Protein backbone atom coordinates (compact mmCIF):
# COMPACT_ATOMS: atom_id res chain seq x y z
CA UNK A 1 0.00 0.00 0.00
CA UNK A 2 1.36 3.41 -0.84
CA UNK A 3 0.16 6.97 -0.66
CA UNK A 4 0.74 8.98 -3.76
CA UNK A 5 0.50 12.69 -4.07
CA UNK A 6 1.38 13.64 -7.61
CA UNK A 7 1.38 17.39 -7.28
CA UNK A 8 5.07 18.01 -6.71
CA UNK A 9 6.39 20.47 -4.16
CA UNK A 10 7.49 22.69 -7.03
CA UNK A 11 3.94 22.94 -8.31
CA UNK A 12 2.62 23.75 -4.86
CA UNK A 13 5.29 26.41 -4.40
CA UNK A 14 4.71 28.10 -7.73
CA UNK A 15 0.99 28.10 -7.05
CA UNK A 16 1.68 29.84 -3.75
CA UNK A 17 3.98 32.42 -5.38
CA UNK A 18 1.44 33.27 -8.06
CA UNK A 19 -1.49 33.35 -5.65
CA UNK A 20 -0.94 37.07 -5.11
CA UNK A 21 -1.28 37.83 -8.82
CA UNK A 22 -4.98 37.76 -9.64
CA UNK A 23 -4.50 37.00 -13.36
CA UNK A 24 -1.93 34.21 -13.07
CA UNK A 25 -3.28 30.73 -13.65
CA UNK A 26 -2.17 28.47 -10.84
CA UNK A 27 -0.71 25.12 -11.93
CA UNK A 28 -3.23 22.36 -11.63
CA UNK A 29 -3.31 20.70 -8.21
CA UNK A 30 -4.02 17.03 -8.34
CA UNK A 31 -6.38 15.29 -5.98
CA UNK A 32 -4.45 12.96 -3.66
CA UNK A 33 -5.27 9.29 -4.06
CA UNK A 34 -4.29 5.98 -2.55
CA UNK A 35 -3.17 2.91 -4.50
CA UNK A 36 -4.21 -0.42 -2.95
CA UNK A 37 -2.14 -3.57 -3.62
CA UNK A 38 -0.51 -1.84 -6.62
CA UNK A 39 -3.66 -2.67 -8.56
CA UNK A 40 -6.42 -0.28 -7.69
CA UNK A 41 -7.64 3.10 -6.48
CA UNK A 42 -10.71 2.34 -4.38
CA UNK A 43 -12.14 5.82 -3.84
CA UNK A 44 -13.63 8.19 -6.37
CA UNK A 45 -11.26 11.10 -7.08
CA UNK A 46 -14.17 13.51 -6.76
CA UNK A 47 -15.89 11.78 -3.84
CA UNK A 48 -18.93 11.08 -6.00
CA UNK A 49 -19.87 8.66 -8.76
CA UNK A 50 -19.16 9.77 -12.34
CA UNK A 51 -21.60 10.31 -15.19
CA UNK A 52 -21.42 7.38 -17.66
CA UNK A 53 -23.12 9.30 -20.47
CA UNK A 54 -20.48 12.00 -20.42
CA UNK A 55 -17.82 9.31 -19.85
CA UNK A 56 -18.68 7.74 -23.20
CA UNK A 57 -18.16 11.11 -24.89
CA UNK A 58 -14.83 11.69 -23.13
CA UNK A 59 -13.64 8.19 -24.07
CA UNK A 60 -14.38 8.85 -27.76
CA UNK A 61 -13.12 12.45 -28.01
CA UNK A 62 -9.70 12.50 -29.71
CA UNK A 63 -8.50 15.42 -27.63
CA UNK A 64 -9.60 13.82 -24.36
CA UNK A 65 -9.69 10.05 -23.73
CA UNK A 66 -9.13 8.95 -27.33
CA UNK A 67 -9.41 5.41 -25.96
CA UNK A 68 -10.42 4.23 -29.45
CA UNK A 69 -6.89 4.92 -30.64
CA UNK A 70 -5.85 1.71 -28.90
CA UNK A 71 -8.98 -0.11 -27.73
CA UNK A 72 -12.18 -1.46 -29.21
CA UNK A 73 -15.31 -0.18 -27.45
CA UNK A 74 -19.02 -0.77 -28.17
CA UNK A 75 -19.23 2.49 -30.12
CA UNK A 76 -20.53 1.39 -33.53
CA UNK A 77 -20.93 4.92 -34.87
CA UNK A 78 -17.14 5.42 -34.83
CA UNK A 79 -15.04 3.63 -37.49
CA UNK A 80 -11.46 2.40 -36.90
CA UNK A 81 -11.08 1.11 -33.38
CA UNK A 82 -7.47 0.57 -32.32
CA UNK A 83 -6.03 -2.88 -31.75
CA UNK A 84 -3.01 -2.13 -29.59
CA UNK A 85 -4.76 -2.64 -26.24
CA UNK A 86 -7.37 -5.21 -25.16
CA UNK A 87 -11.03 -4.95 -26.21
CA UNK A 88 -12.85 -3.11 -23.42
CA UNK A 89 -16.41 -4.11 -24.27
CA UNK A 90 -16.68 -6.28 -21.14
CA UNK A 91 -14.40 -4.20 -18.88
CA UNK A 92 -17.23 -3.64 -16.40
CA UNK A 93 -17.62 -7.36 -15.72
CA UNK A 94 -13.97 -8.45 -15.89
CA UNK A 95 -12.35 -5.62 -13.92
CA UNK A 96 -13.16 -3.94 -10.62
CA UNK A 97 -13.99 -0.24 -10.50
CA UNK A 98 -10.80 0.44 -8.55
CA UNK A 99 -8.63 -1.39 -11.10
CA UNK A 100 -10.19 0.57 -13.96
CA UNK A 101 -9.61 3.83 -12.08
CA UNK A 102 -5.90 3.12 -11.55
CA UNK A 103 -5.49 2.06 -15.21
CA UNK A 104 -6.81 5.42 -16.31
CA UNK A 105 -5.10 7.57 -13.66
CA UNK A 106 -1.64 6.05 -14.05
CA UNK A 107 -1.28 2.71 -15.86
CA UNK A 108 2.48 2.85 -15.32
CA UNK A 109 1.83 2.02 -11.67
CA UNK A 110 0.59 -1.36 -12.92
CA UNK A 111 2.99 -1.84 -15.85
CA UNK A 112 5.94 0.58 -16.10
CA UNK A 113 6.50 -0.35 -19.77
CA UNK A 114 2.94 0.15 -20.93
CA UNK A 115 2.12 2.08 -24.09
CA UNK A 116 -0.99 3.53 -22.44
CA UNK A 117 -0.69 7.18 -21.35
CA UNK A 118 -1.42 8.26 -17.77
CA UNK A 119 -4.57 10.37 -17.94
CA UNK A 120 -4.28 11.89 -14.49
CA UNK A 121 -0.63 12.73 -13.99
CA UNK A 122 1.15 16.04 -14.56
CA UNK A 123 4.81 15.51 -13.73
CA UNK A 124 7.73 13.21 -14.42
CA UNK A 125 7.52 13.79 -18.18
CA UNK A 126 10.22 14.91 -20.64
CA UNK A 127 9.81 18.02 -22.80
CA UNK A 128 6.08 18.46 -22.62
CA UNK A 129 4.78 21.07 -25.10
CA UNK A 130 4.16 24.41 -23.36
CA UNK A 131 0.43 24.24 -23.81
CA UNK A 132 0.23 21.02 -21.79
CA UNK A 133 2.84 21.67 -19.11
CA UNK A 134 1.63 21.03 -15.58
CA UNK A 135 -1.67 19.72 -16.93
CA UNK A 136 -3.31 16.33 -16.88
CA UNK A 137 -4.93 14.85 -19.99
CA UNK A 138 -8.25 14.44 -18.16
CA UNK A 139 -9.68 16.24 -15.13
CA UNK A 140 -10.66 14.27 -12.01
CA UNK A 141 -14.34 14.59 -13.04
CA UNK A 142 -13.61 13.28 -16.53
CA UNK A 143 -11.67 10.32 -15.09
CA UNK A 144 -14.65 9.43 -12.90
CA UNK A 145 -17.02 9.78 -15.84
CA UNK A 146 -14.94 7.35 -17.92
CA UNK A 147 -14.71 4.92 -14.97
CA UNK A 148 -18.51 5.03 -14.65
CA UNK A 149 -18.87 4.45 -18.40
CA UNK A 150 -16.54 1.43 -18.44
CA UNK A 151 -18.44 -0.03 -15.47
CA UNK A 152 -21.56 -0.12 -17.67
CA UNK A 153 -19.78 -2.32 -20.27
CA UNK A 154 -20.70 -5.91 -19.51
CA UNK A 155 -20.00 -7.58 -22.87
CA UNK A 156 -22.58 -9.20 -25.11
Amino acid sequence: MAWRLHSSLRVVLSAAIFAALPLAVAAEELVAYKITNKTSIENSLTGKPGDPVNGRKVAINRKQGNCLACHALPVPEQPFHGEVGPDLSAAGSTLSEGAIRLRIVNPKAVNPDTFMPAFYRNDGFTRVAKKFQGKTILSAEQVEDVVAYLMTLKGN
Partner: protein
Amino acid sequence: MRRGILAAALGLGLSAVLAGPAMTEQSQWGPYQVGDVRSGYTYAAGETRDMQDDDFVNPAMLWVDSGAELWETVDGAAGKSCASCHGDAAESMAEAGTKFPVYFEPSGKMMNLEQRINFCRTENMKADAFKWEGQELLRLTTFVRNQSRGKPMNVKIDGPAAPFYAKGKEFYETRRGQLDMACSSCHVDNAGNMLRANLLSQGMSNGFPTYRLKWQGVGSLHRRFRGCNKQVRAQPYDYGSEEYVNLELYLADRARSLPVEAPAVRN
Protein backbone atom coordinates in the same frame (compact mmCIF):
# COMPACT_ATOMS: atom_id res chain seq x y z
CA MET B 1 -0.43 -6.44 -28.83
CA ARG B 2 -2.36 -9.55 -29.79
CA ARG B 3 -0.28 -9.87 -32.91
CA GLY B 4 2.83 -9.65 -30.74
CA ILE B 5 1.67 -12.56 -28.65
CA LEU B 6 0.75 -14.49 -31.75
CA ALA B 7 4.12 -13.80 -33.32
CA ALA B 8 5.89 -14.89 -30.13
CA ALA B 9 3.85 -18.10 -30.03
CA LEU B 10 4.63 -18.83 -33.65
CA GLY B 11 8.27 -18.06 -33.12
CA LEU B 12 8.50 -20.52 -30.24
CA GLY B 13 6.59 -23.48 -31.53
CA LEU B 14 6.04 -23.27 -35.22
CA SER B 15 9.05 -21.54 -36.69
CA ALA B 16 10.24 -24.67 -38.47
CA VAL B 17 6.84 -25.36 -39.98
CA LEU B 18 6.35 -21.76 -41.08
CA ALA B 19 9.82 -21.10 -42.47
CA GLY B 20 8.57 -21.66 -46.03
CA PRO B 21 5.54 -19.33 -46.07
CA ALA B 22 7.41 -16.66 -44.08
CA MET B 23 10.10 -16.51 -46.76
CA THR B 24 7.48 -16.19 -49.48
CA GLU B 25 5.92 -13.29 -47.61
CA GLN B 26 9.28 -11.52 -47.37
CA SER B 27 9.98 -11.66 -51.07
CA GLN B 28 6.52 -10.23 -51.74
CA TRP B 29 7.98 -6.78 -51.03
CA GLY B 30 11.07 -7.20 -53.16
CA PRO B 31 13.73 -4.60 -52.34
CA TYR B 32 11.37 -2.79 -49.94
CA GLN B 33 12.04 -5.41 -47.27
CA VAL B 34 15.48 -6.50 -46.08
CA GLY B 35 15.25 -9.15 -43.36
CA ASP B 36 12.87 -7.70 -40.77
CA VAL B 37 13.45 -4.14 -41.95
CA ARG B 38 10.50 -2.84 -43.95
CA SER B 39 10.10 0.42 -45.80
CA GLY B 40 6.99 2.53 -45.16
CA TYR B 41 6.15 1.54 -48.74
CA THR B 42 5.14 -1.92 -47.50
CA TYR B 43 2.64 -0.38 -45.06
CA ALA B 44 1.18 2.14 -47.50
CA ALA B 45 -2.18 1.70 -49.22
CA GLY B 46 -2.13 0.15 -52.71
CA GLU B 47 -3.18 3.39 -54.44
CA THR B 48 -0.43 5.27 -52.61
CA ARG B 49 2.18 2.75 -53.74
CA ASP B 50 0.89 3.02 -57.32
CA MET B 51 1.36 6.80 -57.18
CA GLN B 52 4.96 6.37 -56.07
CA ASP B 53 5.70 3.70 -58.68
CA ASP B 54 4.74 5.79 -61.70
CA ASP B 55 6.88 8.89 -62.27
CA PHE B 56 4.15 10.39 -64.44
CA VAL B 57 1.68 10.17 -61.56
CA ASN B 58 3.98 10.78 -58.59
CA PRO B 59 3.22 14.41 -57.66
CA ALA B 60 6.68 14.78 -56.08
CA MET B 61 8.30 14.57 -59.52
CA LEU B 62 7.40 18.27 -59.84
CA TRP B 63 9.89 18.92 -57.04
CA VAL B 64 12.53 16.79 -58.77
CA ASP B 65 12.04 18.64 -62.07
CA SER B 66 12.14 22.10 -60.54
CA GLY B 67 15.15 20.98 -58.46
CA ALA B 68 16.92 20.06 -61.72
CA GLU B 69 16.38 23.64 -62.90
CA LEU B 70 17.82 25.03 -59.67
CA TRP B 71 20.85 22.75 -60.12
CA GLU B 72 21.67 24.63 -63.32
CA THR B 73 20.80 28.11 -62.04
CA VAL B 74 23.67 30.52 -61.42
CA ASP B 75 23.28 32.40 -58.14
CA GLY B 76 25.49 34.28 -55.66
CA ALA B 77 28.61 36.47 -55.84
CA ALA B 78 30.83 33.65 -57.15
CA GLY B 79 28.70 33.45 -60.30
CA LYS B 80 28.30 29.69 -60.12
CA SER B 81 25.58 27.06 -60.22
CA CYS B 82 25.72 23.65 -58.61
CA ALA B 83 26.45 22.26 -62.05
CA SER B 84 29.49 24.55 -62.46
CA CYS B 85 31.35 22.38 -59.96
CA HIS B 86 29.43 19.12 -59.85
CA GLY B 87 28.53 18.72 -63.53
CA ASP B 88 26.04 15.96 -64.27
CA ALA B 89 24.21 15.18 -61.02
CA ALA B 90 23.38 11.65 -62.19
CA GLU B 91 27.09 10.91 -61.85
CA SER B 92 28.37 13.28 -59.18
CA MET B 93 25.42 12.79 -56.79
CA ALA B 94 24.86 9.07 -57.35
CA GLU B 95 25.93 8.19 -53.79
CA ALA B 96 25.06 11.41 -51.96
CA GLY B 97 21.52 10.26 -51.15
CA THR B 98 22.72 7.09 -49.44
CA LYS B 99 25.32 8.39 -47.02
CA PHE B 100 24.05 11.47 -45.17
CA PRO B 101 24.32 12.62 -42.41
CA VAL B 102 28.14 12.58 -42.52
CA TYR B 103 30.68 13.73 -39.94
CA PHE B 104 31.88 17.21 -40.93
CA GLU B 105 35.41 17.88 -39.72
CA PRO B 106 35.30 21.73 -39.62
CA SER B 107 32.25 21.86 -37.34
CA GLY B 108 33.02 18.68 -35.40
CA LYS B 109 29.37 17.66 -35.84
CA MET B 110 27.16 15.68 -38.15
CA MET B 111 25.91 17.40 -41.32
CA ASN B 112 22.81 16.31 -43.20
CA LEU B 113 22.05 16.73 -46.90
CA GLU B 114 20.13 19.98 -46.53
CA GLN B 115 23.00 21.44 -44.51
CA ARG B 116 25.55 20.28 -47.12
CA ILE B 117 23.55 21.97 -49.88
CA ASN B 118 23.33 25.19 -47.90
CA PHE B 119 27.04 24.98 -47.08
CA CYS B 120 27.81 24.80 -50.80
CA ARG B 121 25.55 27.78 -51.37
CA THR B 122 27.11 30.02 -48.74
CA GLU B 123 30.75 28.89 -49.03
CA ASN B 124 31.10 27.83 -52.67
CA MET B 125 28.57 30.04 -54.42
CA LYS B 126 28.63 33.01 -52.02
CA ALA B 127 24.84 32.91 -52.10
CA ASP B 128 22.33 33.04 -49.24
CA ALA B 129 21.35 29.80 -47.55
CA PHE B 130 17.92 28.54 -48.49
CA LYS B 131 15.30 28.63 -45.75
CA TRP B 132 14.54 25.35 -43.99
CA GLU B 133 11.38 23.77 -45.37
CA GLY B 134 11.19 26.51 -48.01
CA GLN B 135 10.36 25.27 -51.51
CA GLU B 136 13.85 25.87 -52.97
CA LEU B 137 15.61 23.74 -50.39
CA LEU B 138 12.95 21.03 -50.70
CA ARG B 139 13.28 21.00 -54.50
CA LEU B 140 17.04 20.81 -54.53
CA THR B 141 17.19 18.19 -51.76
CA THR B 142 14.56 16.07 -53.51
CA PHE B 143 16.43 16.36 -56.80
CA VAL B 144 19.81 15.44 -55.27
CA ARG B 145 18.45 12.53 -53.26
CA ASN B 146 16.54 11.24 -56.27
CA GLN B 147 19.91 10.67 -58.02
CA SER B 148 20.48 7.78 -55.57
CA ARG B 149 17.06 6.23 -56.00
CA GLY B 150 17.25 2.45 -55.78
CA LYS B 151 20.69 2.45 -54.13
CA PRO B 152 20.96 0.97 -50.61
CA MET B 153 21.07 3.29 -47.60
CA ASN B 154 24.63 3.20 -46.33
CA VAL B 155 25.48 5.68 -43.60
CA LYS B 156 28.71 5.59 -41.58
CA ILE B 157 28.18 5.24 -37.85
CA ASP B 158 31.67 4.34 -36.65
CA GLY B 159 34.74 6.53 -36.03
CA PRO B 160 33.87 10.15 -35.31
CA ALA B 161 30.16 9.49 -36.02
CA ALA B 162 29.86 6.99 -33.16
CA PRO B 163 29.04 9.41 -30.31
CA PHE B 164 26.42 11.17 -32.46
CA TYR B 165 24.86 7.85 -33.33
CA ALA B 166 24.65 7.06 -29.61
CA LYS B 167 22.85 10.36 -29.00
CA GLY B 168 20.41 9.67 -31.81
CA LYS B 169 19.65 6.24 -30.41
CA GLU B 170 19.06 7.67 -26.97
CA PHE B 171 16.68 10.26 -28.43
CA TYR B 172 14.83 7.51 -30.25
CA GLU B 173 14.28 5.52 -27.10
CA THR B 174 13.38 8.37 -24.73
CA ARG B 175 9.74 8.78 -23.82
CA ARG B 176 8.54 12.34 -24.19
CA GLY B 177 5.54 14.60 -24.10
CA GLN B 178 2.38 14.42 -22.04
CA LEU B 179 1.59 11.08 -23.72
CA ASP B 180 5.00 9.83 -22.55
CA MET B 181 5.94 7.90 -25.68
CA ALA B 182 9.26 7.26 -27.40
CA CYS B 183 9.74 6.90 -31.15
CA SER B 184 10.33 3.23 -30.42
CA SER B 185 6.98 2.92 -28.57
CA CYS B 186 5.22 3.37 -31.89
CA HIS B 187 7.71 2.35 -34.58
CA VAL B 188 9.37 -0.65 -32.87
CA ASP B 189 6.98 -1.97 -30.22
CA ASN B 190 3.83 -1.35 -32.25
CA ALA B 191 4.92 -1.47 -35.89
CA GLY B 192 2.23 -3.29 -37.86
CA ASN B 193 -0.53 -2.36 -35.40
CA MET B 194 -3.46 -0.05 -36.10
CA LEU B 195 -3.51 3.10 -34.03
CA ARG B 196 -7.08 4.05 -34.76
CA ALA B 197 -7.06 4.66 -38.55
CA ASN B 198 -3.25 4.66 -38.83
CA LEU B 199 -1.26 1.57 -39.63
CA LEU B 200 2.04 2.08 -37.80
CA SER B 201 5.13 1.47 -39.92
CA GLN B 202 8.71 1.06 -38.74
CA GLY B 203 9.17 4.82 -39.31
CA MET B 204 11.90 4.50 -41.94
CA SER B 205 13.64 7.50 -43.47
CA ASN B 206 14.66 6.13 -46.88
CA GLY B 207 11.84 7.88 -48.75
CA PHE B 208 12.51 11.49 -47.70
CA PRO B 209 11.88 14.16 -48.84
CA THR B 210 8.43 12.61 -49.12
CA TYR B 211 5.17 13.68 -50.70
CA ARG B 212 2.44 13.29 -48.09
CA LEU B 213 -1.16 13.31 -49.18
CA LYS B 214 -1.96 14.97 -45.85
CA TRP B 215 0.55 17.76 -46.53
CA GLN B 216 -0.48 18.11 -50.19
CA GLY B 217 3.19 18.64 -50.85
CA VAL B 218 6.74 17.48 -50.24
CA GLY B 219 8.19 17.73 -46.74
CA SER B 220 11.54 17.02 -45.12
CA LEU B 221 12.34 14.31 -42.59
CA HIS B 222 12.63 16.99 -39.92
CA ARG B 223 9.08 18.09 -40.63
CA ARG B 224 8.02 14.50 -40.00
CA PHE B 225 10.03 14.45 -36.74
CA ARG B 226 8.26 17.60 -35.59
CA GLY B 227 4.87 16.07 -36.39
CA CYS B 228 5.71 12.86 -34.52
CA ASN B 229 6.92 14.91 -31.53
CA LYS B 230 3.79 17.04 -31.53
CA GLN B 231 1.38 14.15 -31.67
CA VAL B 232 2.63 12.97 -28.28
CA ARG B 233 2.28 16.56 -27.02
CA ALA B 234 6.04 17.09 -26.81
CA GLN B 235 7.85 20.33 -27.67
CA PRO B 236 9.43 19.79 -31.11
CA TYR B 237 13.03 20.82 -31.92
CA ASP B 238 14.04 23.27 -34.64
CA TYR B 239 14.58 22.18 -38.23
CA GLY B 240 18.24 21.32 -38.64
CA SER B 241 18.85 21.15 -34.88
CA GLU B 242 21.68 18.94 -33.67
CA GLU B 243 19.15 16.71 -31.92
CA TYR B 244 17.28 16.02 -35.16
CA VAL B 245 20.45 15.54 -37.23
CA ASN B 246 21.70 12.95 -34.73
CA LEU B 247 18.27 11.30 -34.77
CA GLU B 248 18.46 11.30 -38.56
CA LEU B 249 21.77 9.44 -38.33
CA TYR B 250 20.23 6.78 -36.11
CA LEU B 251 17.27 6.42 -38.47
CA ALA B 252 19.53 6.17 -41.52
CA ASP B 253 21.22 3.21 -39.85
CA ARG B 254 17.87 1.62 -38.99
CA ALA B 255 17.03 1.84 -42.70
CA ARG B 256 20.42 0.43 -43.76
CA SER B 257 20.20 -1.56 -47.01
CA LEU B 258 16.70 -0.38 -47.86
CA PRO B 259 16.72 1.43 -51.21
CA VAL B 260 16.59 5.22 -51.31
CA GLU B 261 13.03 5.93 -52.48
CA ALA B 262 13.10 9.70 -52.67
CA PRO B 263 10.64 11.00 -53.47
CA ALA B 264 8.31 8.53 -51.74
CA VAL B 265 4.54 9.01 -51.52
CA ARG B 266 2.83 8.37 -48.18
CA ASN B 267 -0.53 9.02 -46.56
